[in-house]
């Protein structure tokens, strides 16, 4: 399989005042298209920093990042926005939905920026909401939805533009076990049925157990990178 993601010696240094924090200390990784990967590690080990760079939200201090063979370091703001819009779906721990904005309009957001016409936009967003099991909730605003439902809206938003990768930074961190399993099963389904590469940051080993590859972080470095022999399914329907 082709390398969807390749990083070479990524380093990220934060300068907060006099203190220098090395959040990433030489990360070289490749992730194949169609992968389902869990990134694990203690708090502060640099997982979010990596995800933000992979999501083209941030740039590394040094090192290279290739996405589908394209050197991301050589792109300007608008080109990065285009990549975030077309290739990447981001799911955050805190959902990051627009307040006082209906689920449907939240999901439509990426389509607005890719210039899809109003009618088509609505249809595609409704399909995305349907695929995360939220049909009939399209007019509800985030404050009328449970945490699990809000995260499902966020996933619908991430997948609405048919991205190559979904990056999820602790997507179940704010959710109870039942909702967490629902969310993970959706990711599994997207990975298997839609062949979307999914990278999930998580603290919970039982969530990581659903994935096919686990990358363990410590102090800005990869300490372990193991392929799971078999992976469990969050729900029977998601298994092929």
């Amino acid at each position: 399989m082709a390398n969807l993601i390749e990083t070479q010696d990524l380093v990220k240094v934060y300068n907060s005042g006099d203190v220098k924090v090395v959040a990433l200390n030489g990360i070289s990784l490749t992730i194949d298209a169609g992968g389902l990967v869990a990134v694990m590690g203690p708090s502060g080990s640099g997982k979010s920093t990596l995800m933000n760079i992979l999501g083209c939200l941030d740039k590394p201090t040094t090192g290279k990042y290739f996405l589908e063979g394209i050197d991301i370091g050589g792109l300007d703001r608008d080109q990065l926005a285009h990549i975030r819009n077309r290739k990447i779906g981001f799911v955050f721990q805190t959902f990051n939905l627009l307040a006082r904005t209906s689920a449907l309009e939240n999901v439509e957001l990426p389509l607005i920026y890719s210039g899809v016409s109003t009618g088509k936009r609505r249809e595609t967003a409704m399909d995305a909401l349907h695929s995360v099991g939220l049909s009939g909730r399209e007019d509800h605003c985030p404050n009328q939805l449970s945490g699990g439902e809000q995260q499902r809206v966020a996933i619908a938003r991430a997948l609405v533009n048919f991205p190559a990768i979904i990056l999820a930074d602790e997507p179940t961190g704010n959710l109870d076990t039942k909702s967490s399993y629902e969310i993970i099963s959706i990711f599994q389904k997207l990975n298997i049925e839609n062949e979307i590469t999914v990278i999930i940051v998580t603290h919970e080993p039982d969530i990581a157990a659903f994935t096919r590859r686990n990358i363990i972080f410590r102090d800005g470095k990869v300490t372990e990178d193991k392929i799971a022999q078999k992976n469990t399914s969050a729900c029977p329907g998601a298994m092929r």
Partner: protein
Amino acid sequence: MFFLSSLKIAFRAIRVQRMRSALTMLGIIIGVGTVIIIINAGSGAKSQIAKQIAGIGSNLLMVFPGSTSSGGVRMGAGTKSTLCIGDAEAIKEACPSVKLVAPTWGGTAHLVFGNQNWSTSVTGTIPDMFQIRNWTLAFGFLFNQRDINTAAKVCILGQIVVENLLGDIDPIGQVIRINKIPFTVIGVLDKKGSSSYGRDQDDSIYVPLSTAQKRLFSTHIPGLVRTIMVQAKSLELMFEAEKEINALLMQRHHIQSGQEKDFTVRNLTEIMSIAQKTANIMSVLLLTIAMISLVVGGIGIMNIMLVSVTERTREIGIRMAVGGRSKDILMQFLIEAIILSLFGGLLGMVLGITACKVIAAVIKWPIPISWEALLLAFVFTGSIGVFFGFYPANKASKLNPIDALRYE
């Protein structure tokens, strides 16, 4: 299409912060309202003054008895300080810059027709006065030289006198009593207008000069006149005419140069054009104030937009994370600022037009609403939105996506 979504987003943002948006718009509302009032009321006042100038007569000089140098007009304290028909005739004969001369004599009289009565001012004059003042007749004829020679009991009425005394009766040929003396109505003047000045002119009647002097308000010296109206041959010759009249009357009244004069020559056209200039200066001043309040309103919008950009940093981050480009974010906030200012501008126009109508009703001047002024205000407020919205919008669009997302 993207513009439409930006419009929708902006409207939602404004709706969510209703109170704040309203307060933001207040500066613009007041500014635009004031501009509309000043432009429209100002041009209304100007056209009113222009009308009054036309009503006074063009190139008009007035000669009064008494001196103004000691403050106020001193009325005939002896033969020396009075004007007479002879002075008027001499001005006409001897001053080359003078075209027409009309002496007047009059007072207030009580009019009776049937069971109606009315008090008004009665002016005795000669037919030339109507020409000097550009006054025209609606019905009938002017009195002529023979009426003046014979001190005929004929009169010409202003419209208000006709309304109050005769109502719907055809006035021509009717006999009315002026201070109990019967007069035949031979003419009715055209209406002068709705201003208080116009009402004064319409509420008057005119009789031959000799009739006023001999039958109505008898003079203690024969041929005495109250004012002499003089029309110069042209606007350029008005100062020349003023000089000639001064010289002639000083000679006729045996006044040495340096001595106090017993008459006054007033240049009414000049006075009116000074009034017009004053009105112009006033409206420029007020317009400046209105512009300042517009700019202050614009700064208010900028302030609120800056607050809004800060408050909505996370929203901006989310939009960028899903593919919003800098120019999309710029457009969104710019459109929001433009909508705020244009909406404020529209409300300001409504306020201004309403105020103009109220003012027009109170002072009884017509205030025509100029569409050019409205268009100007609209374009101007739109520009204010762009100008003052650009800085905050640009600031928002330059944010780093991850910094915006992490903003607390």
